[in-house]
């Protein structure tokens, strides 16, 4: 009986060691892959539409909330890979104004999740500290419930002084709404400075959008195989390279990311000159 117990322990030990070995081999390959990718042009700004959480949940027979939690974890992993690669700005589409039309139960679940994860992101994620990430929440925060709004403001305040990299999270955002609020901001400035100046420029609109002084995205990625923008960064993406990936967001792995970067690098020589990021 004692021999049996020893075999039992040995079996689990070996299994754990093997898992660690495989993980370290995978990590070596990942680092190698990142070095290979970094030898070519690397995008400075990636925009991501994280689509497919609910479809993943229904396929895996788990509930939708868990699907979104897995989506958040996938976001952290993807962000880690992107920042290791040298990407400076990542903009993600978390919640659209149109999504408020979903069932109230689902919306309240999502709001609760957003609140939790925003607090978790800023207080407990190593990523934010190690890469000096400035977290910005883009969107009409007045449409959000009080808890989420306060979490968002706390997150922005806590990371305000981080200047190396930026994570823009679009919550309660649509691009058409963004342009309308940019005009309203311009009008507010006008009434104070030059009330009769009717002329507005592209730079003024650029400056007053939620993305502010960020350069336009170099890559726009949408997962889950849908090929549409769904009212995301319409003004900013006029010359971005658009990538559509068939994987659902919780399945989006480092290899999908590398494939996307490789496609971008292949298309890089044909991009308009002013769109090329300096690196």
């Amino acid at each position, binding site marked *: 009986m004692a021999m049996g117990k020893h075999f039992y322990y040995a079996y689990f030990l070996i299994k754990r060691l093997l898992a660690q070995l495989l993980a370290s081999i995978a990590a070596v390959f990942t680092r190698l892959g990142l070095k290979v990718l970094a030898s070519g042009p690397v995008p400075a700004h990636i925009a991501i539409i994280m689509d497919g959480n609910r479809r993943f949940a229904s396929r895996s027979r788990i509930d939708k909330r868990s699907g979104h939690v897995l989506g958040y974890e996938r976001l952290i992993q993807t962000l880690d890979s992107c920042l290791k690669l040298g990407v400076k700005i990542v903009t993600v589409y978390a919640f659209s104004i*149109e999504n408020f*039309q979903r069932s109230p139960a689902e919306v309240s679940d999502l709001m609760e999740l957003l609140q939790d994860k925003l607090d978790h992101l800023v207080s407990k994620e190593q990523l934010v500290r190690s890469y000096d990430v400035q977290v910005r929440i883009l969107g009409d925060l007045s449409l959000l419930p009080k808890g989420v709004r306060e979490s968002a403001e706390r997150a922005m305040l806590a990371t305000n002084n981080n200047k190396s990299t930026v994570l823009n999270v679009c919550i309660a955002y649509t691009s058409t709404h963004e*342009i309308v609020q940019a*005009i309203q901001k311009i009008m507010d400035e006008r009434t104070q400075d030059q009330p009769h100046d009717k002329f507005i420029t592209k730079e003024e609109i650029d400056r007053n959008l939620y993305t502010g002084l960020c350069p336009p995205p170099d890559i726009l990625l949408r997962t889950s195989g849908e090929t*549409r*923008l769904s009212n995301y960064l319409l*003004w900013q993406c006029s*010359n*971005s*390279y658009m990538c559509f990936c068939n994987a659902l967001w919780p399945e989006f792995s480092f290899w999908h990311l590398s494939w996307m970067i490789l496609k971008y690098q292949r298309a890089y020589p044909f991009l308009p000159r002013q769109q090329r990021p300096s690196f």
Partner: protein
Amino acid sequence: MSKFPKKFWQDKSPDKKNQKRLHCVASDGNVGYSTSNAPADSLSSTSEASRLWFVQNESSLQHADAMSLEVGRRVVYSSNPEVTCASESITHSCAQIERELNPMLMPRHVAIIMDGNSRWAEKRGLEPSSGHEAGLQALKNVVGLSRRWGIQVLTVFALSTENWLRPKMELDFLMNLIERGLQDELSNFQKEKICIRFIGNLSMLPESLQSLIAFVERSTWYNEGLKLIVALSYSGRQDILQACQLLVAQAIDGLIKPEDITESMIDDKLLTTLVGEMRNPDLLIRTSGERRLSNFLLWQMAYTEFYFVDAFWPDFGELDYKKALLSFQSRKRRYGSRL
């Protein structure tokens, strides 16, 4: 192992398990319901239609309008490849239906970025001007196909503001080509009732072309058929900017309050407002394999489906167009109510 999440490639289309024809719609609008494998029997006595379409659920039959029709991923489901009906006039096979376009699911507004003329010519060792000539032929073909298939608005991106940086000789040739094209096709437009309109910064074009454009627009103003919108010297950002400019001017004049500005106000001021409620394209096709919008119809493409073709524009023919439309017809459009 059953709890292990399935990879997406292992789970192609679960709906295929229960393939039963449930409802059937004839091309003349009659509707029949059946859960058997021969639904056509119920229709054979009431309609002489030559075509039948099968939709998966009843809700899709309530709206005849193609825009609001929402069907599953595949319109036709059948375990029985052949359908023969009692009446001889309705004899059709499901396999044939699958390969054809469904007129009820046609996009109302198709936008096309006609890219790749110069590269097409370079590949064949020709001058870029031959590429543009071939491109014009392809455009004529596509306009004819759109009219035949019942598309109501076709917007084509002929010249962008960024294209003004091209060599002067090429631009002169392009202007000449557009003039010749318009003069040759004017009688055709009148015959086929095509209404042609131009959007963009037309003041940058030569005077002769501007007056010809004005003449052609006036002549075809009241035509009821396909609306062809040609974007010449057009920039999507400039379009949004001029709409915002108009609203800012109105706000400064005190006609509207800044806090009352809405998205539909900007919609009404954009250059595509001339087609009314069909101003937003349902499908965008871009040729030559580029994956960019290149500053074309930015605001209007909020919910547009994209389709990218690797062929260059002069090679874009009926088959590519049909594939693009079939791809569009198989998509589920949610308009943002679920991201």
